[in-house]
């Protein structure tokens, strides 16, 4: 399977969208190579503002741009936007429902050995707790592009979390992403794996391994964390014997939390959350850290089998 950088692909898309939406203004927090906002800067220098290392001001400025009818796209790392500027995002963007798009890279533990300060394992929980804020976590370059298109067509604040890691291609141009809708990647009524972000690839691989053992496992990719596709979760709770959620995030408050909130109200099935078990990370590459956290194909498959016993 080919691997791509969703940051680079998304940045390329943003340049294309820049032609369609004259109102797009990209704001950067001094990370233009890492976020790849440099691509937009090169294409539209007059619609690009490098705000420097002053993220709170950057989000406030974005609110002002949106008030005056622009579509600000704020770029930085997930950790800084969700935590350093949390209050600006909540009070000056989400509360007045301003049309600001946060397109943040380095979600989860993808910054690897850069360390815990640069990891974002809390951002999904934080951003999804803010009313009016849509939270989108794509899993590969194609899905990231489609998420970006959908976010720009949507009126209101959106948080898009990208990974720093290269990702395997799962989606093709034939697939269609809609805000509020999950995508069904594998059919099956024995168990269900629900993934978000880059975990989609391990989820699919785990389901394929399980199938070889005769366990038909449904795979749902939940790129739209908020609004959440309640229907598809309720259906999985009714039709399958076990649900396993997989995310590059703390097991508290993210995808696992969101799925459990739905299942707790509908009942019918046990849910196992796979993710970071509420602690800060050790030193290592993203792959090393995922292995240590048992966020792997083998661990997912083992959990599914364990729950079906």
């Amino acid at each position, binding site marked *: 399977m080919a691997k791509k950088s969703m940051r680079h692909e998304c940045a390329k898309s943003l340049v294309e969208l820049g032609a369609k939406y004259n109102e797009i203004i990209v704001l950067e927090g001094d990370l233009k190579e890492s976020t790849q906002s440099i691509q937009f800067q090169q294409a539209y220098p007059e619609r690009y503002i490098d705000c420097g290392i002053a993220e*709170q001001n950057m989000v406030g*400025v974005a609110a*002002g741009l949106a008030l005056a009818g622009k579509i600000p796209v704020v770029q930085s790392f997930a950790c800084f936007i969700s935590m350093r500027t949390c209050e600006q995002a909540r009070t*000056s963007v989400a509360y007045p429902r301003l049309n600001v798009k946060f397109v943040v890279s380095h979600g989860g533990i993808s910054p690897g050995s850069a360390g815990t300060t640069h990891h974002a394992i809390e951002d999904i929980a934080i951003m999804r707790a803010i009313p009016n804020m849509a939270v989108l976590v794509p899993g590969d370059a194609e899905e990231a592009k489609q998420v970006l298109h959908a976010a720009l067509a949507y009126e209101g604040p959106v948080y898009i979390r990208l990974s720093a890691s290269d990702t395997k291609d799962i989606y093709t141009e034939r697939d269609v992403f809609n805000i509020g809708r999950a995508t069904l990647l594998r059919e099956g009524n024995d168990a269900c794996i629900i993934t978000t972000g880059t975990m989609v690839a391990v989820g699919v691989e785990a389901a394929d391994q399980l199938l070889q053992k005769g366990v038909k496992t449904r795979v749902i990719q939940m790129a739209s964390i908020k609004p959440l596709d309640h229907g598809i979760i309720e259906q999985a709770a009714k039709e399958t014997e076990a649900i396993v959620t997989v995310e590059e995030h703390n097991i508290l408050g993210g995808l696992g939390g969101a799925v459990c909130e739905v299942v707790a109200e509908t009942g019918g099935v046990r849910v196992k959350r796979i993710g970071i078990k509420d602690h800060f990370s050790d030193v290592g590459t993203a792959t090393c850290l995922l292995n240590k956290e048992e966020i792997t194909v083998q661990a997912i498959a083992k959990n599914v089998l364990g729950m079906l016993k």
Partner: protein
Amino acid sequence: MISPKIKELKHIAKQARKLMVETLICAGCGHPGGAFSSIDLMTALYFDIMKIDPHNPQWDERDRFILSKGHSSIGLYTILHLRGFMDKETLLTFRQDNSLLCGHPDMHKIAGVEMSTGSLGHGLSVGAGLAMVGKMDKKNYRVFVLMGDGETQEGSVWEAALFAAHHKLDNLVGIVDRNMLQIDGCTEDILALEPYRAKWETFGWHVEEIDGHNFKQIKETLERCPVSASRPTLILANTVKGKGISFMERNPAWHGGGLKGDQAEIALQETNAALVED
């Protein structure tokens, strides 16, 4: 010799103070101190300085006003009422159940409120964003952002100060209501701001210092904005917290609180008496 315009502004400010007292009595709570210190500034902005149209609040060319010190909402609401954006019945619902008038203003509830504010240190960045669009799209509007002096202890204010100077936003006017008090006491005892003027100047702003209760000075200075080509302007308005109500003046205890009993009576008498003088 006082010009008719200044006489008119003074009279409107007196009406505003009386209405604020009435509204605070109805509400039983609110933030009087900073509203009374900044009401003269807001009066001049809305009745003399800013290009606005109450019949067309979203007029594209209008000057923008952001009340960054959102807790002074009672001042803004009162001025919006006097300027024709809202009726008195609505004003008197301030902070009551299901009212449109929250303690900190919501832009989606009342026409004329440009931005929802309340958490301190946000407004100057938002104003800078609006000013930036004015530059990009070659529009002539000006953006006025009213901040509390205590508010400028927030680091984000200084991020915005750097940004506005860097981008030469001369269409942005920051106004600081320098009443020297914050909730817990004098700004200089809690977290000193002085030398205050020099701070703004060092950050690249053109600073004008005025008496924030002297309409001649307010009018003459705000009329000249933008004062300096290629630099944002900071109006350092020296004010008295609680101005116009004897027992509130310079008393930090009146940052927040409702008017009840004898104090309500005194405040009504004082604001009425001031109006009768005219």
